[in-house]
């Protein structure tokens, strides 16, 4: 039923093209990496595979933020928290998969617990040896946090800047909490040294290619879900809440429910992105909760163009590719470039790259239409009671 809902008439050709491109990347990039010899000019090196895989998870994260910010006007400065929680759920599964291959050879306890003298596995670690359970948690934990947080925040009508600031407080508090070694999540070092995922060696080229493909598929699904949500009449409602929240309330809607749904859905998407991110970078630690990380996600979305579906994806890919290049080639200039980019984009491209391009395209077609409809327009204006613009 869900798949019918998703694919039934209503995805614009632009979205379908985007999905096709993403899925093509999922097939072609791994193929170029695995099938071609290293000397071949079209060979994609393995580090590029991991890198692109990582970018794709970032793109999904940016898309999830766009759903709440771009379409619903909730600027979350704590989306990194959902991403990290999803990541931790995956990390816990991967830790349990290590089994007796840790440096101490303890079959049950992860290494960090062994050398901090933990005697038994904390209760909240049980179940994570099963992938299905971990997969459930990847979705459930960020979703539940978003639901509870949103339930309180939206019902008490915390909006705008205040909401942004308390989401920031939320991720900051979580960061401090996960830094604590007593929490049993590995403290500052986090979870690392993973061995395999679903029985595949995590360092094997084929696994990396597989993870890239999985990230691409997840992103494509994210695009479809977002497109369906925003394309439905619920999507109109989202935008209505963004533009004039009190109006919707006086029309009899409950904007808090609308926001709660969007926020929770978005958190789940972010959690999935985090879960795919962790095996590809090989580590998850409390640094992912840092408020600065969440702000960066906002920046990707803003640069790409919020309120569009392609925008955040483009933004995430561009900024991160830029970061990879700058930190390698011109390390001293990286922060100047990133900082400058924010300032320039907010000043000169408030709708982001994609938003601006769309606007240009739209006004061009508008002009064409206008020229065509010039004659009719005269009648139209006369029919109007005012006739003035």
């Amino acid at each position, binding site marked *: 039923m869900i798949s019918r809902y998703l694919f039934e008439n209503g995805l614009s050709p632009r979205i379908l093209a985007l999905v096709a491109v993403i899925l093509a990347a999922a097939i072609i990039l791994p193929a170029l990496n695995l099938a071609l010899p290293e000397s071949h000019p079209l060979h994609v*090196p*393995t*580090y590029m595979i*991991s*890198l692109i895989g*990582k970018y794709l998870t970032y793109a999904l994260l940016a898309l999830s933020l766009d759903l709440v910010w771009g379409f619903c006007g909730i600027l979350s400065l704590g989306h990194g928290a959902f991403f990290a929680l999803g990541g931790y759920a995956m990390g816990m599964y991967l830790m349990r998969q290590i089994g*007796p*291959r*840790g*440096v*101490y*050879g*303890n*079959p049950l306890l992860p290494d*960090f617990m*062994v*050398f*901090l*003298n933990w005697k038994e596995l904390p209760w909240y670690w049980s179940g994570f040896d099963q992938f299905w359970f971990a997969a459930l948690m990847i979705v459930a934990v960020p979703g539940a946090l978003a639901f509870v947080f949103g339930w309180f925040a939206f019902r008490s009508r915390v909006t705008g800047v205040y909401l942004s600031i308390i989401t920031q407080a939320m991720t900051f508090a979580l960061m*401090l909490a996960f*830094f*604590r*070694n007593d929490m049993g999540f590995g*403290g*500052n*070092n*986090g979870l*690392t*040294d*993973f061995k395999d995922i679903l029985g595949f060696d995590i*360092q094997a080229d084929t696994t990396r290619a597989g993870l890239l493909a999985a990230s691409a598929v997840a992103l494509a699904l994210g695009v479809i879900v977002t497109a369906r949500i925003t394309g439905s009449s619920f999507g109109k409602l989202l935008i209505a809440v963004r533009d004039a929240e009190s109006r919707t309330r006086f029309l009899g809607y409950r904007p808090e429910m609308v926001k709660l749904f969007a926020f929770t859905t978005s958190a789940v998407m972010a959690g999935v992105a985090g879960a795919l991110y962790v095996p590809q*970078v*090989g*580590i998850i*630690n409390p*640094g992912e909760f840092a408020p600065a990380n969440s702000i960066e996600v906002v920046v990707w979305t803003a640069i790409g163009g919020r309120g569009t579906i392609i925008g955040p994806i483009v933004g995430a890919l561009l900024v991160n590719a830029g970061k*990879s290049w700058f*930190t*390698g*080639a*011109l*390390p*001293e*200039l*990286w*922060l*100047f470039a990133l900082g400058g980019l924010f300032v320039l984009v907010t000043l000169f491209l408030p709708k982001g790259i994609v938003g601006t391009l769309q606007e240009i395209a739209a006004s061009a077609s508008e002009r064409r239409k206008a020229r065509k409809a010039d004659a009719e327009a005269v009648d139209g204006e006369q029919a109007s009671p005012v006739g003035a613009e």
Partner: protein
Amino acid sequence: MAGCIRNLAATVFGAALTASVMAGAARAEETIKVGILHSLSGTMAISETTLKDVMLMLIEEQNKKGGVLGKKLEAVVVDPASDWPLFAEKARELIEKDKVAAVFGCWTSVSRKSVLPVFEELNGLLFYPVQYEGEESQRNVFYTGAAPNQQAIPAVDYLMNDEGVERWVLAGTDYVYPRTTNKILEAYLKSKGVAEEDIMINYTPFGHSDWQTIVADISKFGSAGKKTAVVSTINGDANVPFYKELGNQGIKAEDIPVVAFSVGEEELAGLDTAPLVGHLAAWNYFQSVDTPENEEFIAGWKGFIGDEKRVTNDPMEAHYIGFNMWVKAVEKAGTTDPDAVIDSIVGVSVPNLSGGYSTMMPNHHITKPVLIGEIQEDGQFETVWETPGLVVGDEWSDYLEDSKSLIADWRAPMSCGNFNTATGKCGGKGVN
């Protein structure tokens, strides 16, 4: 101020130039590339930038001597920006894309943990220059900083024997290095007959800046009639406010000395040390060490960086030792091939800066002297005690239940990082 602006301009243009010149140079002649993986931005830049500079200096000097194996060395600098996953990404880039022969880098444990799988997978070489918690030995990593037995335990011994300390405050930042070090110290102190109630353990978050309560607690703990000392594993930025608070609350080194393992000359450069005279630090090197090698190193450093005020510190010496060991091992092996270097580097001895020789041991840790120094008014340390000989880095602590029976030896045929002497098998402690 004018100099500062010039600095800025120089950096901006210099960086652009270096990038293009480097690319050009690489084409012109074959070089051996050396990766430098230290954060140049973000929270860790404060410590790590210096290590990048010292590596550039060492490489430049080696090139003046004719390079290695007749080829020039070429530094590849990247910025992992204090972002731990980015460390892994950059490490991969260095090894896979830039094909560096060895990487010198990392500061925090988490950054090392993050890159470990990459070095293992791609068979790279990492020289890690910072004191750390131990409990690790990896085939591709060389630990040139101190293990806990090369820093913490001698410091405690000194306080116990020479200062007659009976009560202990173990204060640290809440992360793995302080946690492990304090675990080891606790076990060690208890083995020396210190009672449970004479040990106070306190953890604070990263960047903790309000130390009023904790310093007051320490002085309360210290007024129980027994000689008290603080063993500090407080990290990074939190140290300055901690020492400022100590100074202001009038806790003098004569009453309650603080011995730190993460405070070196570089950290003191940001402090007015007058109220701190007499507090201690344990390292394997101090800038004040009076040897010809050190004098030459300091002069070289000040000349390279163009600032008379810049100081040297222990991790810099670790890179000095590690780099020279690598050069020697490469020359011994006649190739930069990682497997060959891993085989040839064990047993290599190079002069350290404190007047002796450091040797790479089969567990990939090195031998070092341990120095205890007191802070002086000029921001330097004065050695008040040192181990009679060199101490071998002990990767698996003898004071932790689970690592007692483990050893590491990367020579054939054992070639194992966690060999269990009790069961005679490689692969950790196993089931109890």
